């Protein structure tokens, strides 16, 4: 019998982009599943961009940072740009003091600006392709 997944992070598609919002605490197994789900969805939908909303996350520790950076790196290998949105002020303060860096990930204040940032950067990439 297949195990039922009670814990799942939904991944939605709009235009050429995937949107996901992390609403539950990520633990190892869920993080691995989330990474795999995202990559499969990227392959299936041929998305060009990924928005990860972390509005509901109240602690970003070294583990979550590593997971987010890994997702962005994996997505990049599949030609997808990642934008992180919804970082709360207290988390931004803590991250800087802690000394953690979200390298390789674009940031935007909220979902709306995240999507417009993706539109801009994926258009630039298209133009580069057309010229080259």
């Amino acid at each position: 019998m297949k195990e039922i997944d009670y814990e799942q992070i939904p991944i939605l598609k709009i235009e050429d982009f995937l949107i996901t919002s992390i609403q539950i605490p990520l633990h190892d197994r869920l993080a691995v599943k989330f990474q795999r789900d995202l990559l499969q969805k990227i392959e299936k939908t041929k998305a060009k961009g990924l928005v990860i909303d972390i509005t509901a996350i109240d602690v970003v520790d070294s583990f979550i940072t590593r997971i987010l950076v890994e997702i962005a790196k994996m997505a990049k290998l599949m030609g997808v740009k990642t934008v992180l949105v919804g970082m709360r002020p207290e988390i931004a303060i803590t991250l800087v003091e802690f000394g953690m860096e979200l390298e390789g990930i674009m940031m935007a204040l909220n979902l709306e600006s995240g999507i417009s940032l993706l539109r801009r950067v994926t258009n630039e990439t298209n133009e580069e392709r057309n010229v080259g």
Partner: protein
Amino acid sequence: MKLMDDERVVEVKSEYDIVIARAVVRAIAKDMGFGLVDQTRIATAVSELARNIVVHAGEGIILVREIIKGGSRGVEVLAIDQGPGISDIELVLRDGYSSKGSLGVGLGGAKRLVDEFEIKSAPGKGTTVRIVKWLSVR
């Protein structure tokens, strides 16, 4: 999770307990009057300590209590395990050091988020990390 006098003890055995430890310490810090930024600093530091227990020792406890010293109130957290212990404490506090494939800012980063940070450990003797955040008088 048990209530012992005014101490809260969280048994840390799996990664799910890391979430519980964070929630307990955040709730206590909030009750004591810590602001949102300090709550987040403390919860993040505790998250690192709890993860260290799970990754390096397998199991241990997180003990949270309110302390008073010279008219100052603070929250004290002890992370105690009977794991393999740390041979070079200076080394694990250095940024970029990671013994088990984590990001390598864990303990050093946690130290920067709190007011007091102390590690007692020796190989084979387990590890106790003590952190304190003082409630600043406004």
